Structures are given as C-alpha cells and as structure tokens.
C-alpha cells in the first residue's frame, strides 16, 4: 500500500535511523550495561562482601546443588503451565464470542478483557484478597448459605496464585486468538459444513488448526511472562508458593548475595530463551513465519 507507485528514491536512505539514537542510548544505560554487569557479577565469588575471585562458577553450582533453587524453578514452570493452560481454556471461548458479536458488543467485551491490564498488580491482588480471603466475599456467602463452618482455602496456595494471574493474563491469550480467528475466512468453515461436517468437526479440523498461530503466540507469551512471577505469589500464595523470582528477590533484599542472585537471574534468562525457541519450533509446524 505505502510502498506503492509514489515511492521516492531516498526511501532506502538510512537517515531515518538517526531517530533511533535517543532510544538506543537509553537502552545502553538501562538495558545493555546492566545486563553485562549482571552476567559479570554472576561469575564473581564473594565472601563477606569481598570479591575472592572474578571468575568462578560457584554461583551456578549452588543453583543445582542446594535443591531449593531448582525446586523453585520447577514449581515456577508448573505454575506457568497451569496458568497458560487455564488462560487458553477460558480465553478461547471469549475470543470466539467476540468474533461472533457485532461492533459495539465486541468493543465492550474487549474492554472487559483488557480491564485487568489497566489495574495495578498490587491493586488486583488486594481485590482478590477481598474476594477469596477467609473473610472474603465467597467465604462469607458460603457461610451464609450454611454449607460449611470451615472456610474454603481459596488462596495462600497454588490455586490463589493461578486465579490471580489468569485474571490479568487472559487478555494476552484472547487478543492473539481473536486476531487469528478474525483472519479465518468464514467461507472455509461454511464449505466444510456444507460438505456435511458437524460443527464440532468443523471446529476441530478447520477453525482450531487455522487459529493455531494465535494459540501458540498467546500461550507462549503467558508462559514466558509467568516465569518472572513475583508479586502475586508473594501476596496471594503466602509463604506456601515459592517461585524462582522470589528466591532472587530474597537474595537481593535480605541476603545481599549479588553473585548468586545474578547467576540465578541468568538461569531464568536461559529458561526464557529455551521456551521461546521451543515455541518457534511449534510455530513452524503451523506455518507461523516468525
């Protein structure tokens, strides 16, 4: 469209790239240098605040040795998987409903879906305590119905964390799935139906495969974001849920062990890179270009 006939000859000039200078210089100070420092620190061995060796793999060995960090990583991955799966199970029907509805209704649904994103994490967590906590809405209603005297344990466990995080990350599945669904030509589904396929068959063999790019993109995004979960597990998991980010936070804030914290952070980065690579492999199967 814009590379049309009026294309001017200077279009290949690199001059517009000068406009990248401010962003690039910002990133040097706030992104590149800090990451280099992080990697350097991860190899530093310190005892009592004094650097003993500037190249040692001790910090990385402790990641595998003590079991605490490794267990936290596994639990983080388990939570991430559960959250991404729930987002998909609940988000897909929402995306389908959005596709079916008209303009205004669609806009309203879209607002519902992104509204948690407009709310601060900590505010959302406070809100969920008011709903799920011992004296929260659900438990008060439960008691009012006389169903039980024992309060339901809806938070301070994995369930609370999953509910709290699905609430906000649902949008990251709904939006790409919706985009994929909108890209499907309804005629394809109609022709499958007119050839005798039931709606269930049309969904499994036509709609779902064609929406896979959105499914993979949304699932990956949520999964990757969950690897860095910190605040929600602290607030809604109590001391019962430990993620790798919480371990890193503890190493920095209370133990001041920058070497180990940095090494663990580098491990988190490697895990994120691995997940992105895996998602790419999956994506290529469904013809997702990038």
């Amino acid at each position, binding site marked *: 469209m*814009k590379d*049309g006939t009026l294309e001017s000859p200077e279009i290949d000039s*690199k001059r*517009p*790239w*000068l*406009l*990248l200078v*401010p*962003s690039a210089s*910002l*990133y040097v*100070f*706030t*992104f590149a*240098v*800090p*990451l280099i*420092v*992080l990697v350097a*620190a991860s190899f530093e061995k310190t005892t009592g605040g004094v650097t003993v060796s500037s190249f040692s793999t001790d910090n990385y060995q402790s990641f595998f040795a003590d079991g605490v960090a490794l267990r936290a990583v596994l639990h983080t991955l388990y939570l991430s998987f559960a959250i991404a799966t729930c987002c998909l199970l*609940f*988000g897909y029907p*929402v995306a*389908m409903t959005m596709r079916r509805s008209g303009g*205004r209704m669609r*806009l309203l*649904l879209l607002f*519902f*879906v992104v*509204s948690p994103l*407009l*709310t*601060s994490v*900590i*505010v*959302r967590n*406070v*809100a*969920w305590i*008011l*709903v799920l906590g011992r*004296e929260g*809405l659900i438990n008060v209603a439960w008691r009012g119905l006389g169903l039980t005297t024992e309060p339901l344990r809806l938070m301070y466990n994995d369930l609370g964390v999953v509910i709290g995080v699905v*609430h906000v990350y*649902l949008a990251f599945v709904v939006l790409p799935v919706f985009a994929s669904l909108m890209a499907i030509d309804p005629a394809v589904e109609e022709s499958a139906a007119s050839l005798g396929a*039931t*709606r*269930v068959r049309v969904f499994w063999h036509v709609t779902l495969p064609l929406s896979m790019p959105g499914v993979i993109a949304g699932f990956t995004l949520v999964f*990757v974001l969950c*690897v*860095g979960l*910190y605040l929600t597990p602290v607030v809604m998991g109590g001391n019962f849920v430990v993620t790798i*980010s919480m371990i890193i*936070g503890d190493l920095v804030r209370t133990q001041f062990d920058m070497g180990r*914290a940095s090494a663990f*952070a580098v491990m*988190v*980065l490697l895990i*994120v890179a691995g997940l992105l690579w895996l998602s790419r492999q999956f994506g290529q199967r469904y013809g997702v270009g990038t």
Partner: protein
Amino acid sequence: MTGAQNREDARGWVTGSVAVVTLAFLLLPQIILLVESFTADSYLAFPPTRYGLRWYAFILSDDDWLDALRRSLLVAAIVTPVTLLLGLMAAYALDRGPPRGRRTIFTLLIAPMILPHVVLGLAQFQVVFWSHMQDTVTAYVLAHVTIALPYAIITIGASLQVFDRRLEEAAQSLGAAPWRAAFHVMLPVIRPGLVAATIFSFITSFDEFIITYFLSTRRVTVPIQIFNSLSFQLDPSIAAISGLTLMLTIGLTGFLMAGGQIASGGRILR
C-alpha cells in the same frame, strides 16, 4: 434436522456461558474493591455495614500515603511524555528506514518486554547502586521508560503501518514543508496509536512494582507502599488507596479514549 439444530444451539450456549462466566470473573474483583473502599467501618469485611469517604479522607491526609502518591504521579508524569516521544521517533525510524535490518532493530527495541522484570530490576539495581542513584526519581524514570518503550513502539508502529504515506506526499506536493506535513497530516491520523501508547506508558509507570522495589529503600511509590502495609494487616486504608489508583487509571483511560475518539471522528468505534 431439529436434533442437530438443538445440539448446535446447546454448543453455542456452552461457549456463550463460559464466556459470560469468564467476563464476570474479570470484573468482579475490581467491583468488590471499589465497594469495599467506600467502607466507613474500622475493618474490612464484606459487605460493609456503613459507607462513607472516611478512608479516602484518611489517605489524603496521611503523610506516608501522600508522599508515595506524589512521587508516583511525578514519575509517571515524566515517563509518559518521554516514552511517547522516544516511541514515536523509534517507530517512525523503523517505518521510514531501509527494510534491511528493520527486523533485527525491532527485536532489539522490544527486547525489554520479554525480559522478566526481576532480571531487569536486579541488573539495573547493581548499576544504580554503584552510581549512588538509589531512591532517586531519575532512576525510577529511566527504569520505567525502558519497560514502557516497547509497548509504545509496537502501538505507534502499528498505526504508522496503516497510515497511507501518499497523504503526506500530497501535502508536500501542495507546498507543505516536510515537518509540517508530518505534524499536520501524519500525527492526527496515527492518533489512536499515540493514545494507546500514552495510556500504556502511564499505567506501566504508575503500577510498576518489582524494579522500583529493587531501586528504592525509603522513597517509595504507591505500589510499594501498598505492599509494605500489606505485610502488617489488610486495613481499609489499603482498599481506599487501591480504589483511588483504580479510579485514576480507569478515569485517565476513559478520558484519553473518549478524546481520541472524538478527535478521530469516532473512527475507533467503526
């Protein structure tokens, strides 16, 4: 025939009800929070026995909350225009620069988005600690711009992509200087992208927790002040400050979206 029809209706009904329940789930906590924030009781319980502005009055007269609120607003007020400007420049550069290398530059520019914030916070903490910039607004602003910029580049870039560049060339051929053409023709057209970027930048900054948590010791922002008081006890002042934050972000979003919509002649709706 009717049997199949019934089954199809049932299936549509299942999808519809999952969607309705999910949507209720999305809004319920915020609504409960707003209701609770207007309690006049001395403790949080549902439903409140009396309503009033008691706890809003409390946080707006309490030095700690006011201090945090002022700092959060100051940081967000700097972060938003800076991010918008940098984002517009970067998105424009990507749009107009040569196609070669565009993909790589774009990936680099949005890289902070994929990086877990704990990792970025820890990395920035070490630099900020060495340069004695802990507890400074500058450190917070730099951190927040870094994480808000990718969203700005994506949203502004998306609206630049649908902008028909011939409009600008037409303005130029009619005698407008290039900057004038860009300012008067391009900016109004890409307004929805700019509005979205503004909303996201402000909210990203105002809500940011983990990086600021690492970079601060005493001079905290609202989310950290809420977090710190949560570890004592969940009292109604927390519901009130959370309610205030919620109304502020939603109000700003509504205001900007309404403004953007009127300016673009209601194009968003259609």
